């Protein structure tokens, strides 16, 4: 592993550069194809509403992937992410229009661990809702 971030140069509270990820229906279609997750609630409004959702929602795994980019962009080597976990606290509703939804992602170093590893906490917000909770990655620094 060869991360670009040095363990000695980060502190608890060090912020990762925030990013905003636009999510449109086409992104859900692409993710469905690439991941093989064709659950109807991610592309079919009729079925999404029938099961009690406000409309089509993004794949939780897509949100997790986008939020993870904050960490991999920061560290450089994606292989330096040795653990990554999230709780999907709210769905990301993606309307069928030209705007879609936006995922605002921020992150900070939560803990410095042994073996030059750090725990990073990621916050992902869409609309006013926190869509992930306990989103944390353990990252091997150099």
């Amino acid at each position, binding site marked *: *592993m*060869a991360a670009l971030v040095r363990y000695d140069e980060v502190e608890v509270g060090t912020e990762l550069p925030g990013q905003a*990820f636009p999510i449109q229906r086409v*992104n859900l279609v*692409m*993710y469905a*194809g*690439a*991941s*093989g*997750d064709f*659950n*109807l*609630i991610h592309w079919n409004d009729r*079925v999404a509403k029938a*099961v009690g959702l406000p409309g089509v929602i993004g*794949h*939780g*795994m*897509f949100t*997790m*992937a*986008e939020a*993870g*980019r904050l*960490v*991999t*962009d920061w560290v*450089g*080597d*994606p*292989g330096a*992410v*040795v*653990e*990554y*976990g*999230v*709780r*999907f606290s709210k*769905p990301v509703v993606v309307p069928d229009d030209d705007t879609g939804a936006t995922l605002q992602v921020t992150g900070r170093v939560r803990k410095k661990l042994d073996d030059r590893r750090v725990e990073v906490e990621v916050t992902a917000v869409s609309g006013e809702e926190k869509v992930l909770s306990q989103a944390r*990655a353990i990252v091997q620094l150099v």
Partner: protein
Amino acid sequence: MALDESIVGRSYTAARPYEVGREKIRDFAGAIGDANPAYRDADAAKKFGHGDVIAPPTFAIVITRDTSGQLITDPELRLALHRVLHGEQRFAYTRPITAGDVLTSTLTIDGVKHSKGMDIVSTRTEIATVDGELVCTALSTLFHRPEDDS
């Protein structure tokens, strides 16, 4: 009908090994909009110390599709994909998934709970090379809304 504890310990093994291809990684990285060269350029990945292009951290979900599909379609569980919501996901890696890996996976049901009319099923999927090297453990929690006719 709600799920009960009798399903804890039930396990499913991938029908066939999954061969990780460079182009599949490129497609997946494209779908998540990630231009990291470690996903596309073997030389860039090698500079980071990897043997070939590596997969994004959430790519392991693709490998688990076989066994999670078996779980969802197990007739004895009576789940339905559109009544399933993903509650939690965690990946722990011993090393990154790398192009050329031939991986097998086994999913085990770790627990069943009930809350607000939902079944909460926790699963653990171990992803290993066909030679037995553990690469990733994926922990999932699924919320399942049982059919109304229960």
